[in-house]
């Protein structure tokens, strides 16, 4: 009997840790415009190459090229740019305010602003997004009042969520933005359930759900995809692959030689892998998936390939687990710069207007923060105690009423 090889436990490792040179070797970035665009009404079995490519529209020179270049107006592009820039500036401001103790916690979307903004603008008013904590640009693209965000973050008397939820875990149903969940992945199932309910009612609304790449390891992800495939749920299911789940890199959630989009194949739904820093590619992929959903052909899984340029949250210090300069070397660039360059290239934007927009947005944000500060920052103004027992049930039960009385409120 021949000697048997001794087994060795394999633990995946990222390509660079702090102190090591940034290394994105092996990351294949196809030319913009080089990937085919299948018929959105076509057969899923004929699209199984798509998860292994990367849909890109904007080339190095800022031109929109190839079959995925979407038919979107300059006005919409400017709106998207505005939402992304507003998100970036707001994040920076609030991050700073957290450091000054004006809120307890904050999470930035830096580097990922194209995804929420483009999808928000592509979907209809009645469609519903089941968000994660890094799609603030969805709300910005729909002109959600900044003061509501500020009051929620400050947890003050005018907090629209009445002091019940962590900062950043917004709810804005009327803006197509469902209640954020603190436990990862559960909203993926809700998106599929919401979509199936829409079909049940013969409505024409579709749902959109987000998870991060780390959350694809949760059971909810797989259960939601099972239902999405089996019942043709009219949903767009998005994996925001920003390379990092706090300190664990994407290779901890998925083996190296496959992609997150490829998980769709096993569930019998199309999987697209899309440059998440390319506003136009996000628009195009979202339109494609929406067309398919509206045609009763069911869900699409989209992996948005992007990069979390900031820390996970204000409680996180990414320099402890990745090279400090990794974000600036991300090969797919900055989504805001890329869209701005495109608008300038097509003659619909210029530096002066960009500067003016930046100044205008900064002032809007400062005004909202001032207004929120006037109400009160964390601990200075408090949500009304009288409402603490509201919303536990649609109508309060006796126990809630009794406890409220015991507290004298």
């Amino acid at each position, binding site marked *: 009997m021949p000697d048997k090889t001794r087994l060795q436990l394999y633990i995946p490792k990222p390509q660079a840790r702090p102190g090591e040179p940034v290394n994105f070797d092996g990351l294949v970035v196809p030319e913009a415009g080089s990937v085919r665009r299948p018929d959105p009404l076509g057969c899923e079995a004929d699209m199984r190459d798509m998860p292994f490519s990367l849909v890109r529209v904007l080339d190095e020179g800022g031109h929109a090229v190839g079959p995925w270049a979407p038919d979107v107006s300059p006005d919409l592009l400017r709106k998207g740019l505005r939402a992304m820039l507003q998100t970036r500036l707001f994040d920076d401001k609030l991050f700073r305010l957290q450091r000054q103790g004006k809120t307890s916690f904050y999470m930035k979307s830096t580097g990922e602003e194209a995804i929420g903004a483009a999808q928000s603008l592509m979907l209809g008013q009645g469609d519903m997004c089941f968000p994660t904590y890094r799609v603030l640009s969805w709300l910005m693209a729909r002109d959600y009042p900044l003061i509501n965000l500020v009051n929620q973050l400050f947890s003050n008397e005018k907090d629209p969520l009445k002091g019940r939820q962590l900062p950043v875990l917004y709810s804005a149903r009327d803006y197509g933005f469902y209640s954020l969940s603190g436990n990862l992945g*559960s909203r993926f199932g809700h998106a599929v359930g919401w979509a199936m309910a829409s079909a*049940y009612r013969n*409505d024409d609304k579709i749902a959109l759900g987000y998870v991060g790449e780390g959350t694809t390891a949760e059971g909810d992800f797989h259960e939601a995809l099972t*239902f999405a495939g089996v019942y043709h749920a009219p949903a767009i299911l998005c994996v925001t692959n920003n390379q990092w789940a706090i300190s664990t890199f994407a290779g901890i959630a998925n083996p190296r030689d496959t992609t997150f989009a490829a998980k769709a194949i096993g569930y019998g739904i199309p999987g697209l892998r899309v440059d998440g820093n390319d506003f136009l590619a996000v628009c195009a992929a979202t339109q494609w998936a929406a067309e398919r959903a509206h045609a009763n052909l069911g869900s699409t899984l989209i992996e948005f390939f992007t990069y979390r340029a900031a820390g996970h949250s204000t409680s996180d210090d990414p320099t402890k687990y990745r090279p400090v300069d990794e974000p600036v070397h991300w090969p797919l660039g900055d989504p805001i710069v890329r869209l701005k360059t495109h608008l300038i290239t097509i003659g619909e934007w210029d530096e002066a207007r960009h500067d003016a927009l930046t100044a205008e947005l900064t002032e809007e944000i400062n005004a909202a923060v001032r207004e929120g500060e006037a109400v009160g920052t964390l601990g200075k103004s408090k949500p009304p105690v009288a409402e603490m027992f509201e919303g536990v*049930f649609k109508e309060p039960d006796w126990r809630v009423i009794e406890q409220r009385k015991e507290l004298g409120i």
Partner: protein
Amino acid sequence: MTDILMPALSPTMEEGTLAKWLVKVGDTVSAGDVIAEIETDKATMEVEAVDEGKIEALLVDAGTEGVKVNTPIARLEGGASAPAPAAAAPEAKAEAAAPVPATAKPAAAPVESLPAISQPDWPEGTPTVKITVRDALRDAIAEEMRRDDKVFLMGEEVAQYQGAYKVSRNLLEEFGDRRVIDTPITEMGFAGIGSGAAMAGLKPIIEFMTFNFAMQAIDHIINSSAKTLYMSGGQIKSSIVFRGPNGAASRVAAQHSHDYSSWYANVPGLKVIAPYDAADAKGLLKAAIRDPNPVVFLEHEMMYGNEFDIPEIEDFVLPIGKAKIQKEGKDVTIVAHSRMVGFALKAAEQLAAEGIDAEVVNLRTLRPLDTDTVVASVRKTNRLVTVEEGWGPCGIGAEVAARVTTEAFDDLDAPPARVHQEDVPMPYAANLEAMTVPSVEKIIAAVKQVSYK
């Protein structure tokens, strides 16, 4: 269409005055809009629309006094894009929908081996029919599905197989596969999908083959359904029923015999119901389906095949949050729920032969718990025994005993006694199983203990 029902301000409220309408027929309202004001002798409260839609009818005039809780007071036209129900149920009668106040009249004849029910939920003289708990549940689901197209049933084996315990018998035939949905084998999956559908305004009934398997879905029951209305600042409601058998069956061992009563009853945002007989099952399941909150409905496998009388009343609905004096007595109060009510009644029969007159309280709802009824009973009997199938620590009996000692300490002539499962996972072997679960003998012993006999 959606009926808006007369709401209850407290579990003891049975009727109130409809003081004022703030809307008129033809108005379009959104969920949460205040549509009326009602008054009781204690307070005034606002009635909110539970759904969006156009006011189709105001069924009770402003100024009407004595409007029973749960009576439809207005009707919303809604779900315009949904097809009409296959067979529209006749309109609910206000008298039938309203629960009749308990009057403690002994039933004429005991049901087979099961003890007599002393306190009917329907007017004397109402014709009754014998029905199994299984069929009572089925009829409740079918009636509510006929009444409201937003109601659908989803779970493993509910359609073709008609339910692992045949609770969904003939429902697929009547309602089709759009509304009776066989799912993949993933409790986490269909509880999540159901939660999402509820957030979209449908009214799912989620069947768990048993609540043991709902462990895999408990994140959605608690973190998604129970908490979302609160977390969203009241923006997102979730009207959904999670139902299925709970507790011990027979010879199915630790992973198929768990009683989750106290787990769910611990959670704000959930209503928790545990019916005993067929009338409880039918009247409370209908109420659960109509309730705008998430409801956990704990059935019992060993009760499905038992027959009980239920009234031949159109639209028989019982109030959530009201316990029932199942048998009147003066010497000791035995509080139980679900199958244990039957055990308590049998114990009471045997105790009667020994000269102890026990009162049996059937909790029916575990959250909100009707402690008023329990406390009133203890004030009369001065002694308390609680019975539950699950484990004792942090259990329903612990909660009941705490409430009673807080509110009626001076009325107690003995420390309360608790009867519950022994602190071991349920063994498989019949002799061990029998020793771990509550029994009539253990209840009798506990009663004698608190009676110092």
